[in-house]
């Protein structure tokens, strides 16, 4: 109302559109490619240092045991250090270096799919490790099936309340570094309560990349999701 008073004689143009329409359109195109290849795609969100790369390192051997073929897109502001860690696992990987941009967007994934030459049709799961940041990556869909937020207990049990968007938009929360529970004041119960107060549909896993606790269960869950996606695609 105030603005209309300020500019009474100016042209008013009705828009009524999603501000991120351009990104959404590319994300839909990415999703179509993933659907055609029947590959399950996960967008990993977290603060820097919560253990996204470590989680991938730990889960890949379990997934290999289940004959699951994995590929990984790494997103970082600088360096290919994470890609080198993934390469050591003997699986296909591609590094996106954003040079300052604080998130991955759908266009970057589209380019990565072209440049990486991933064999999507013969792969089962693609992990997209987003830039470590709990704010910006939440706004940009990439075409993924699930957003997963990784939270380490060292970050404090109030993290979901401080960064609600990441928890609101995620399908799964992985609580990492639970091996440190006995030396920290963080409470898993409080983390869960806080996260569920933002999003009561969150599925929650507790893991330790140090001891491998909970990793096998997580691998089995991903296997279920891969099978579900294949079955759903076949019935379409």
């Amino acid at each position, binding site marked *: 109302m*105030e603005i209309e008073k300020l500019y009474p004689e*100016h*042209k008013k143009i009705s*828009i009524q559109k999603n*501000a991120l329409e351009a990104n959404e359109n590319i994300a839909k195109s990415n999703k179509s490619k993933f659907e055609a290849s029947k590959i399950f795609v996960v967008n990993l969100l977290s603060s820097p240092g919560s253990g996204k790369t470590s989680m991938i390192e730990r889960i890949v051997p379990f997934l290999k045991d289940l004959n699951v073929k994995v590929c990984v897109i790494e997103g970082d502001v600088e360096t290919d250090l994470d890609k080198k860690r993934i390469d050591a696992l003997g699986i296909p990987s591609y590094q996106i270096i954003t040079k300052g*941009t604080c998130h991955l967007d759908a266009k970057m994934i589209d380019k990565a799919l072209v440049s990486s030459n991933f064999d999507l049709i013969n792969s089962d799961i693609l992990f997209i490790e987003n830039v470590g940041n709990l704010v*910006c990556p*939440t*706004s940009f869909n990439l075409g993924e099936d699930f957003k997963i937020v990784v939270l380490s207990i060292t970050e404090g049990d109030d993290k979901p309340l401080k960064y609600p968007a990441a928890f609101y938009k995620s399908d799964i929360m992985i609580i990492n570094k639970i091996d440190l529970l006995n030396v920290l004041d963080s409470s898993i119960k409080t983390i869960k309560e806080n996260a569920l107060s933002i999003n009561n549909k969150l599925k929650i896993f507790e893991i330790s990349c140090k001891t491998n606790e909970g990793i096998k269960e997580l691998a089995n869950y991903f296997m279920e999701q891969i099978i579900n996606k294949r079955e759903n695609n076949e019935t379409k």
Partner: protein
Amino acid sequence: MHELSIALEVIEMLEKNNYLEDIRIVNAINLTIGNYSGIDKNYLEFAFQNLGDDRFSEVILNCDYNETDDIKVNEIIAD
């Protein structure tokens, strides 16, 4: 940085849909911003005004809020 990306996305959306044809300056944008969108109105306004596009250098944002993760452009007021 986040808001700068959003501002660029908005301009791309407006241009792709030809809303900026014959527009010299955008005076105001009416938006709906979800409380779970992670967007700060003041930073977003600053981003528009400083991203180097003269059409948006004096733009004012007017925002409604809701309990979603939406970032929706409802209307622009322009010359």
